[in-house]
């Protein structure tokens, strides 16, 4: 900030040795060099993401459709959650720059206050990302379905709640006539993937067979994301046919016709690489945020114990601040290219 860098120095003196031609300290310059290399790493990742996305084109998931949930509120809030995360990170960037400004006035109390605020913001962001990951891994109620012609489609619409399983045939734990009301969706998803649902009859993990009582779904449409014999990528199958085609897969008794959520092998949102890029890019960024929080905590201890005050300047806050703003900067790009466009 201002300071030495704003001084007019004759270029022969500037480049003549003994002083930094950039009028900046060694530590700050090296932090910038590190940030350039880290920026190239992130750009490399985003470019790889862009490459895969352009190679897949229509099969690629759409951000506003994939990320449309809010904690406690459910679905139907496109992009709101990531916008909130973006806002949290911007605010923590602001508190950081305020800490730097307080440092320039040698205001130790101010630095402490704003640095604590920054750390809290950082923890909030990391926590939000944990929720986001959990949501991404668990997936939607419908999942992605493989149709009879071999094409794969994602499902849109409102999932009718599963009311209960009524046991028809006893197994190890359940007796005939039992009505199971707990952990239904999880059990149902598990059975569908394993091919243990046939004509509305679910075979539970203890070997008992039960009838699935489920409310009707509303407004279901299928959007094809992988070519098959008849359906091509981008086809939208209307409500009139979608339900039959979806439940044909659910009730087929064949394993792996439906994919729920995401892991490193497959995901319900789109091509395999989509999930891998999601985990790698947001994970790598989240790791940066986490290490930033740790660095901020270490620096905060230095501020509280007066290390920098004795030194006569708070440049250390500036250097960690650079790193922290960089993390915010990366998120701005991740937000745009992963979620927005």
């Amino acid at each position, binding site marked *: 900030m201002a300071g030495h860098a704003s001084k007019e120095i004759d270029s022969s003196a500037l480049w003549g040795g003994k002083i930094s031609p*950039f009028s900046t300290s060694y530590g700050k310059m090296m932090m910038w060099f590190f940030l350039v290399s880290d920026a190239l790493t992130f750009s490399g990742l985003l470019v790889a993401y862009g490459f895969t996305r352009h190679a897949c084109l229509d099969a690629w998931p759409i951000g506003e459709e994939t990320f449309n949930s809010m904690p406690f509120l459910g679905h139907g809030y496109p992009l709101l959650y990531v916008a909130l995360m973006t806002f949290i990170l911007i605010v923590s960037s602001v508190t950081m720059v305020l800490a730097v400004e307080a440092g320039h006035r040698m205001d130790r109390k101010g630095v402490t206050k704003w640095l604590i605020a920054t750390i809290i913001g950082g923890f909030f962001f990391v926590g939000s990302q944990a929720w986001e990951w959990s949501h991404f891994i668990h997936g939607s109620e419908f999942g992605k379905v493989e149709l009879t012609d071999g094409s794969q489609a994602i499902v849109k619409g409102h999932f009718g709640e599963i009311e209960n399983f009524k046991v028809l045939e006893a197994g190890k734990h359940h007796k005939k006539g039992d009505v199971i009301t707990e952990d239904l969706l999880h059990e149902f998803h598990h059975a569908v993937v394993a091919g243990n649902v046939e004509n509305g009859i679910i075979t539970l993990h203890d070997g008992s067979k039960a009838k699935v009582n489920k409310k009707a779904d509303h407004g279901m449409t299928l959007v094809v994301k992988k070519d098959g014999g008849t359906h091509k990528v981008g086809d939208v199958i209307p409500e009139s046919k979608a339900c039959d085609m979806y439940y044909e897969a659910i009730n087929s008794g064949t394993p792996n016709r439906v994919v729920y959520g995401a892991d490193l092998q497959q995901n319900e949102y789109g091509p395999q690489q989509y999930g891998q890029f999601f985990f790698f890019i947001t994970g790598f960024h989240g790791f940066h945020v986490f290490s930033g929080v740790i660095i901020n905590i270490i620096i905060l201890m230095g501020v509280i114990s007066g290390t920098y005050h004795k030194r006569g300047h708070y440049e250390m806050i500036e250097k960690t601040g650079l790193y922290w703003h960089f993390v915010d900067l990366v998120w701005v790009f991740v937000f745009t290219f992963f979620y927005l466009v």
Partner: protein
Amino acid sequence: MERDDIIEYSLDIHHSEEHGKAIRTKIWKVTALLTAITALEVVLGSQIKQSSDYWQAIKWFFIGLTLIKAAYIVLIFMHLGDEKKSLKYMILVPYFIFILYLIYILIVEALAVNSAWTLNVV
């Protein structure tokens, strides 16, 4: 031991209370701007679908907004705008040379791969 070959640039960066006030005002203005841009992006992103005719325009608008946000973060929050020109360019120029090249390669190659896949020649 006092070393006369090191200039403590860091001691030069102090500013007064009044100057600090001006800087803080600027910081809050930039905050408001960044928040407004993010809000605008979310509203447009949730209202205009990718199948819409306007999508191409919106997409480039988003990318433009992102670059504006990035510029404010780098120049104001990271104070690169206040650094010496030589430092500024040493950071920005190599970065942009690499990235523009990479983006060019990404688009050309990805579309070639896509057309190969869709024509089923591989």
